[in-house]
């Protein structure tokens, strides 16, 4: 018993002693004493020696008030000699901070003079790390919970081993230079400049928003990326977009390591604040509207100008990483539609307008509206229009389907092709017999031939002959649907055209019925995104897709309302008490939501896409 007590007391004494030693005899005191000793041997006169003899180790700190929030930098507690040029050949921590002309240091009367004085700037403004820390591990930010480890010098233990070699190097500090030096081409921050170029060049700006730079809405905002994320996360997110979010559809850009590094440094510099800016200046920049791109016109092109435009369009297509999403020839981004035959299937106006505002032609497209100049839009349009190649179409329907249709509709035809989830409206599930066998065959062949307006289904008639279309349709019907067609039911009471004339009264009645019956799925905004829509496949139709509605014939619309659409969630409303009159009012209401079919070139919408009547 006594022995145990004695041992326990000894342990308590030991622990107390260790804690006492650890708390009151600091490493930094030893560093400071070493500095005082060495400085004394180098002192030139007695006054200096006397002054040094009077100095005692104490916590040195620089309080920085000019850059963002007040900072307390105690780095000089260990790094006491940073501003003492006699220590330039010593080892850390007692080493002079190097003088560098690149940082703006200059020589005066044979002595170096610092551009960024430590008393004004402190340390963490440039180096990051934990300014208040007095122990090496904490001060340098080795701890994985510290957001900003010493930039370019410290990599934290939980960072991915394959990335850490890339994450060292003093170029990473440029991100901090750019907190004040925000000019586009500041010579001291080449990596930030390159990263900014890449941000625009690789079209990151189309999806990502950075305040003051871009307005993208598809992807997470990056205005404060440098504040929120560590460099390893940024690197990983660029190199492997799905590493952190399995559902991310950000393309892989396959950039070189140097480019990734530049992008990471650029993103790290985005902290949502500019230290050099007062809050008033920041407010003013928010008030000034984003720079407008001045339109350049390309009218009256000569043949050589056209060839220039095509070459420039090709260059743009490659430089701006269009193939990160789209497919063209052999490169496939796996997200957006195949553009190989786009030049043949779409006319010049469609292409150009779609480039300028993708949603003006496919209302639910996720393609961002890029801020190119008009000349660039013209060049891209010219390039795609110039690609009039004729593909080798296999004679066999199955092969043809595989080659042309499976990228969206899936190899099995189930509407789950590799890029199907990015298309809205989604590709049709061609295996669903209840749908396929309840629509007239002409509808399908016409949809193939003329495309479906307002969707990603292009008009294959420009590429395939009628016989080929018939062949591929036959394959779909026999190879995919797998259940034989039966004779279609005739709906004798559905009028061929809307019997109720378009009037404010009729629209008001239609709206009342719509609000009562339709909003659950089609939504209050009639955009097909009602509360039930998420549970329904295929999704409810967006009734404000002006191209689709414009091409939708009265008969098909009213038959769909009254007798439902088999194979989808659209019920047969005649069973729930709706009359032909109600359906015609509803149709008038839906038409009232969409602008009257506009003329494009000299064709109306209905003429452009008559195939789906």
């Amino acid at each position, binding site marked *: 018993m006594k022995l145990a007590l004695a041992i326990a*007391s000894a342990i308590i004494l030991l622990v107390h002693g260790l804690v006492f030693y650890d708390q009151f005899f600091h490493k930094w005191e030893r560093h400071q004493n070493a500095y005082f000793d060495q400085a004394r041997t180098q002192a030139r006169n007695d006054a200096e020696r006397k002054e040094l003899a009077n100095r005692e180790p104490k916590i040195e700190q620089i309080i920085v008030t000019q850059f963002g929030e007040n900072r307390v930098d105690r780095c000089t507690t260990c790094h006491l000699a940073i501003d003492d040029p006699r220590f330039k050949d010593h080892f850390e921590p007692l080493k002079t901070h190097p003088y560098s002309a690149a940082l703006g240091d200059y020589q005066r009367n044979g002595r170096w003079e610092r551009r960024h004085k430590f008393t004004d700037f402190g340390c963490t403004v440039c180096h990051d790390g934990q300014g208040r820390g007095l122990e090496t591990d904490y001060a340098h930010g080795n701890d994985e919970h510290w957001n900003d480890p010493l930039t370019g010098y410290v990599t934290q233990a939980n960072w991915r081993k394959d990335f850490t070699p890339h994450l060292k190097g003093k170029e990473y500090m440029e991100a901090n230079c750019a907190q004040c030096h925000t000019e586009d081409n500041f010579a001291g921050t080449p990596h930030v400049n390159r990263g900014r170029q890449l941000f625009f060049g690789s079209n990151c700006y189309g999806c990502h928003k950075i305040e003051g730079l871009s307005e993208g809405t598809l992807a997470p905002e990056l205005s404060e990326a440098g504040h929120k994320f560590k460099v390893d996360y940024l690197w990983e997110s660029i190199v492997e977009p799905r590493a952190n979010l399995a559902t991310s559809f950000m393309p892989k850009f396959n950039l070189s390591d140097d480019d990734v590094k530049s992008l990471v440094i650029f993103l790290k510099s985005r902290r949502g604040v500019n230290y050099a800016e007062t809050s008033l200046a920041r407010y003013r920049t928010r008030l000034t509207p984003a720079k407008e791109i001045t339109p350049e016109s390309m009218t009256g092109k000569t043949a050589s100008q056209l060839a220039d435009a095509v070459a420039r369009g090709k260059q743009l297509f490659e430089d701006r990483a269009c193939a990160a999403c789209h497919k063209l020839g052999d490169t496939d981004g796996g997200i957006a539609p195949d553009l190989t035959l786009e030049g043949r299937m779409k006319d010049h106006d469609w292409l150009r307008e779609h480039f300028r505002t993708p949603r003006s032609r496919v209302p639910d497209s996720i393609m961002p509206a890029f801020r190119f100049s008009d000349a660039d839009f013209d060049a891209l349009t010219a390039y795609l229009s110039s690609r009039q190649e004729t593909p080798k179409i296999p004679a066999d329907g199955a092969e043809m389907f595989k080659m042309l249709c499976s990228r969206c509709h899936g190899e099995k035809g189930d509407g789950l092709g590799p890029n199907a989830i990015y298309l809205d409206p989604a590709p049709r599930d061609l295996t669903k017999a209840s749908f396929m066998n309840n629509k007239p065959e002409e509808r399908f062949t016409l949809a193939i031939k003329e495309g479906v307006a307002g969707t990603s289904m292009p008009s294959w008639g420009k590429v395939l002959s009628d016989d080929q279309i018939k062949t591929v349709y036959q394959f779909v019907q026999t190879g995919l649907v797998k259940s034989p067609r039966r004779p279609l039911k005739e709906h004798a009471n559905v009028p061929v055209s809307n019997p109720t004339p378009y009037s404010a009264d009729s629209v008001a009645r239609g709206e009342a019925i719509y609000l009562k019956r339709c909003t659950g799925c089609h939504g209050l905004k009639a955009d097909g995104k009602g509360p039930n829509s998420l549970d329904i496949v295929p999704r409810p139709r967006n009734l404000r897709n002006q191209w689709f509605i414009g091409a939708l014939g009265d008969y098909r619309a009213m038959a769909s309302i009254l007798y439902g659409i088999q194979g989808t969630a659209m019920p047969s409303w005649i069973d729930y008490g709706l009359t032909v009159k109600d359906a015609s009012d509803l149709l008038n209401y839906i038409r009232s939501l969409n602008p009257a079919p506009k003329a494009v070139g000299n064709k109306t919408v209905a003429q452009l896409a008559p195939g789906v009547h």
Partner: protein
Amino acid sequence: MSEKTTPSNSGDSRRSILTWFSAAALAGSAAISALANFIFMKPRATYGQPSRYSIGRPDDFPSGTRVSIDQRRVCVVREGPKLAVISTICTHLGCTVGVSDTGFACPCHGSRYDQDGNVVGGPAPKSLTWYQVSLAPNGELEVDTNAPVDQGTYYTI
């Protein structure tokens, strides 16, 4: 019984040694803990600008300079090779005094000081403080506001 007494005697002395040892160890722990508290009598670091700071190179202050550094609340005075740093904190209620032709004048309650900081009028009870100046290794002048010096103590460049 005699067999038992011998070990019990040695056991007693062993026990008492252990007791003393335990008591000493625990007392030592208590003493260390108690002593450790004294460290908190004085703060290890204080917030606010550090008391030692650099004001620039001697060349920045040509002879005849009397210039006030408002952020630091000091006035740098140089006459030939002699340089001094005088506090501009009024000794009355702590306003920042202005540098005038005749010396210093406080805008708050009209205290007046001569060129060396001696009170010549107004409510101020004491003359202005002079601070120690030294040359840092990087060639800049360093002021230590924790080290007041006697009036008329100049740093010679």
